[in-house]
């Protein structure tokens, strides 16, 4: 078991989700509590004000009722104040200029009470008191204002109590929410962790394992499906590669074995110069087979790596077909086959003429190999309606079975197993794969159609030079303008 490094832990999605969750929960709780506290404070203040205004009104009426009996007024006011002692009330009577004429015993520090004009008719906070002022009408000039104050201490006490409770609640949230967050994040990332575990276990030697699909159709399931699809493709690719390597080794072994045998036998006894000649010639022939095979495999490897050399230029496909026709017409005649060439005017394409000549050669060669004496092979080059260049090689040969047809472009695939290796005319089994690689590098397509016993038609479709110029498949296109289009 390996322990995760701090960097891994703090960088993990699990950790970060936990942190975000905690921060979010904490902020929500904090804002809610602050809001509640403020609402409570305002409500309490409003209640205090209501009471204060009622008191002030009542006291003004009392004062007016008992005027001019000052003693009676003071007594009444004093009584009123003391009955509401828990609210911390105080009362002042002021003259017109604001000088205090009388005040209740429960007075706040005198310095803190500002002169009358500042105190409004509406309750105002002055230091730790809510203060309201009533004007006494038609009275003694010494008694012009009635000022009533109510302590804010009860409100503040209540708010303070709530604040304490909130701080405790906040602390609890702060402690609990990371745990909850950790648990939640764990739940959310567990499938992810499983994906990681499974993926980490995967090895090219065991390509069977796949990620579990939980059937929840969520993002993680989609991720698993995507990874599985990728694995399928990789598995197919690796299998194909393994097959290729195995086949290649097998193919290389035959000529190698032949070389080894003849050299060993040759060295076993003294021989005449003529015999040595013969022997070395045979060996050289096998070397040629090896060289061709290796070259073909290198070409395919280059193509797989996307590094197939294409030196494009504008050229006429039908001229390439003509050259190939020239090259093979002798072989075809020797095999009692008719090799026909059908061209209708120039078909200008943009690509690597040498590579495409290789394609045409391979196709004609295949057609000759799989034809019976008396047959006809038709090579035709034309433009189709969709403005493509079309090259077709059709034979009247033995055809390909429907089981073999989908595989003919696979490397080393040979339909007729009996022709494998024993008979050199079977070729390396790479011809068509090479053709499709080259055609693909030219943005073209290759199609093989066949009817068993009737013949095979291979159709190669390539972009015309104008189309290729539009799509910019490669090098400078100035050659197109300068080349003859007749």
């Amino acid at each position, binding site marked *: 078991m390996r322990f995760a490094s701090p960097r891994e832990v703090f960088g993990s999605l699990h950790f970060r989700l936990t942190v975000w969750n905690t921060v979010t929960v904490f902020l929500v709780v904090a804002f809610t509590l602050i809001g509640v506290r403020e609402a409570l404070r305002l409500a309490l203040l409003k209640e205090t004000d209501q009471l204060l205004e009622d008191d002030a009104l009542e006291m003004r009426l009392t004062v007016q009722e008992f005027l001019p009996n000052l003693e009676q007024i003071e007594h009444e006011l004093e009584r009123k104040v003391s009955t509401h002692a828990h609210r911390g009330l105080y009362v002042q009577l002021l003259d017109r200029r604001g000088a205090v004429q009388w005040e209740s015993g429960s007075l706040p520090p005198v310095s803190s009470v500002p002169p009358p004009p500042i105190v409004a008719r509406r309750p105002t906070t002055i230091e730790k008191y809510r203060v309201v002022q009533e004007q006494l009408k038609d009275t003694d000039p010494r008694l012009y204002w009635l000022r009533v104050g109510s302590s804010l201490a009860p409100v503040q006490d209540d708010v303070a109590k709530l604040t304490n409770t909130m701080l405790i609640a906040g602390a609890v949230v702060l402690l609990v929410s990371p745990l909850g967050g950790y648990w939640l994040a764990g739940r959310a990332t567990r499938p992810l962790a499983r994906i990681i575990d499974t993926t980490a276990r995967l090895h090219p030697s065991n390509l069977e394992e796949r990620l579990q699909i939980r059937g929840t159709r969520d993002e993680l399931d989609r991720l698993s499906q995507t990874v599985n699809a990728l694995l399928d493709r990789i598995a197919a690719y690796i299998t194909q590669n393994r097959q290729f390597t195995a086949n290649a080794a097998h193919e290389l072994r035959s000529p190698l074995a032949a070389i080894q045998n003849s050299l060993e036998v040759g060295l076993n006894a003294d021989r005449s110069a003529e015999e040595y000649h013969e022997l070395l010639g045979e060996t050289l022939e096998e070397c040629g087979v090896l060289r061709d095979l290796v070259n073909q495999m290198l070409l395919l490897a280059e193509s797989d790596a996307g590094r197939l*050399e294409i030196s494009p230029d504008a050229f006429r496909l039908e001229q390439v077909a003509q050259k190939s026709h020239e090259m093979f017409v002798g072989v075809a005649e020797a095999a009692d086959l008719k090799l026909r060439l059908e061209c209708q005017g120039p078909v200008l394409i943009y690509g690597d003429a040498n590579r495409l000549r290789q394609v045409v050669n391979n196709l004609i060669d295949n057609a*000759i190999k799989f034809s019976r004496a008396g047959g006809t092979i038709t090579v035709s080059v034309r433009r189709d309606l969709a403005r493509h260049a079309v090259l077709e090689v059709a034979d009247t040969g033995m055809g390909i079975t429907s089981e073999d047809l989908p595989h003919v472009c696979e490397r080393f695939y040979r339909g007729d197993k009996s022709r494998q290796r024993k008979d050199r005319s079977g070729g390396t089994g790479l011809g068509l794969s090479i053709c499709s690689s080259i055609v693909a590098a030219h943005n073209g397509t290759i199609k093989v159609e066949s009817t068993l016993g009737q013949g095979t038609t291979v159709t190669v479709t390539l972009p015309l030079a104008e189309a290729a110029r539009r799509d910019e498949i490669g090098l400078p296109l100035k050659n197109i303008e300068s080349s003859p289009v007749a």
Partner: protein
Amino acid sequence: MDLLIVEDDPLIGKSLQKGFQEAGHQCVWVRDGIRGLELGRSQRFDAITLDLMLPGLPGLDVLKTLRNERILTPVILLTARGAIEERVEGLTVGADDYLVKPFSFVELMARIEAVCRRSVSRPSATLEVGDLRLDLATRRATRGTAECELTPTEFSLLEYLMRFAGKVVTRKMLCEHLWETDWDGTTNVIDVHINRLRGKLDRGFGQSLILTVRGRGYALRES
């Protein structure tokens, strides 16, 4: 001819040297670029075969230095398959030809002779080998007194064989000469034409002029 081989692979170097010497040429083989450059500067060679991947000094640098110093000894590059940029650069800085490994010895020899000839003489208008005569201007072929009717392909084939009379010509060389393309398939596209050519040339003669050299190609009998 006096030849310089600059090649670090001991097996290839040794066999090239042996091959050239047996073909009657003087030959010096060095295994690194610095020695190659020193000897190349001496200007006593008729041609140089230069490997591109060399210890000491890369082949391209050797070539560039030689050409910068106005030393115009013909140079044939030996390159690995796929190293197209180096090859192109090599030709740009003044190589006369190149060959991709693995190559056949006769082809290298033919190319060396070709680059040397290129700088010396023009081919004549008639080729003659033994009793065989080929008029390049009128495109007529005669053996002794008998005239042979040849197709353009056969004519071209015979011309090439006659230029290399007495020497082995590979199928690859013939393919490239006839159709400007290499054919590495297993079908022998040359055989048919050779056989027809033989039929036309040897009619009435006991001995075939064109020999098949097992594993290598064909050769035209010199006398």
